[in-house]
């Protein structure tokens, strides 16, 4: 169904339920949907599984959500950063679960969820601790590990511009995980810097077609 334009970030994130898996876009702060994450903190859903490349920066956004104790499990590729003290503290205290996934498998597992692929054989991580316990198979002389899709109940995505139908364009390297997560969640919620009329985006340059977008809020 075509996208709903929301007036506020609060309205946009009211769909998140306790225990949900939430995909949160961004690579560090580039593409991080800060307004949606702030609204999610306000909204109060807890016991969340959060899938995001990093595990929060500083004390705002995802880090603030973690600090409130709302997240049961992080699925990410790179939690440890110079300013990831919130996650670091929770992890060392045993108060958060971590599933560490190589960045390419993280992206591809969400792509698989969005693309209806049941599982795929990846060469990444073979022979390392991150493939331990997973099925492997030799194909054409190379060893691969079987990886399963990662689906979200909700995706929170930061994009640059949306039209009122929900078509999206991103800006520079802030694109990163947004387009993939938009395909992988039951409900995709997008914050944009600018909302434009239908027909104002170049059809050749749309990155996320509106079919993947459920809610849009301009912030």
């Amino acid at each position, binding site marked *: *169904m*075509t996208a709903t334009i929301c007036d506020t970030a609060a309205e946009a994130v009211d769909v998140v339920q306790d225990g949900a898996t939430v995909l949160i876009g961004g690579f560090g702060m580039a593409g991080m949907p800060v307004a949606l994450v702030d609204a999610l903190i306000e909204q109060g859903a807890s016991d969340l599984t959060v899938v995001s490349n990093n595990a929060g920066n500083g004390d705002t956004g995802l880090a603030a959500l973690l600090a409130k104790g709302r997240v049961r499990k992080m699925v990410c590729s790179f939690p440890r950063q110079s300013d990831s003290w919130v996650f670091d503290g929770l992890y060392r205290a045993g108060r958060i679960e971590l599933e560490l996934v190589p960045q390419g498998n993280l992206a591809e597992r969400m*792509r698989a*969820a*969005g*693309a*209806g*692929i049941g599982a795929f054989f990846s060469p990444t991580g073979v022979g390392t601790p991150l493939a331990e316990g997973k099925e492997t198979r030799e194909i054409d002389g190379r060893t691969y590990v079987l990886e399963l899709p990662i689906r979200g109940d909700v995706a929170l995505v930061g994009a640059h511009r949306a*039209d009122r*139908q929900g*078509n999206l364009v991103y800006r520079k390297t802030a694109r990163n995980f947004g387009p993939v997560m938009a*395909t992988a969640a039951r409900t995709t919620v997008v914050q944009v810097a600018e909302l434009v*009329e*239908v*027909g104002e*985006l170049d*059809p*050749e340059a*749309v990155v996320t*077609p*509106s*079919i*993947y977008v459920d809610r849009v809020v301009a912030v």
Partner: protein
Amino acid sequence: MSLSKHEMAALVARDIPRGAYVNLGIGQPTLVADHLPAGSGVVLHTENGMLDMGPAPADGEADPDLTNAGKQPVTELPGSSYFHSADSFAMMRGGHLDVCVLGAFQVSAGGDIANWHTGAPDAIPAVGGAMDLAIGARSVFVMMTLFAKDGTPKLVGECSYPLTGVGCVDRVYTDVATFDLGPDGVVVRETHGLSYDELADRLDVPLLRGVASGTGR
């Protein structure tokens, strides 16, 4: 009286929710587009890589780079987007289309569909995107005549033609009746020019009486 192709297409169009993302298969299903009400907000997908496909162009304005899955010229609408084939089929396979409408040689009571190959020894097989559409869309509607030219039913216990997809059809629109295929069996939604008993008599599949619905959902 049995329905014309256009009357069938109008019935299908009536049942497509507002704002739905829809793929109309090659042939008869493309007629559905002509019956979508203005302002329905329905967005048409074509598997060769476009959303928000518009109608055929005016005479002399065909663009060879802008076609539908049947390779006929179409147009762009405000809100259109283009994407490559892997992205287009990811969209279909990933369950993002609300509805697809397909033609068929046969549909089974269990929702199997056969629409790509007659199995004739000299036929050249061609499948295109039919298998992806059959298993990918959230709701799969079939449009077909209920009986073949020789009078044999096309809604059957088991398909005799090679399958396109297994257990995937939700509803079948025919010239003489519309059927819902559900966990309880084949439900007759409405009939056109035939009574329920006449229908039950001519089909080899058990039927259930459904509530006639002329108002959409």
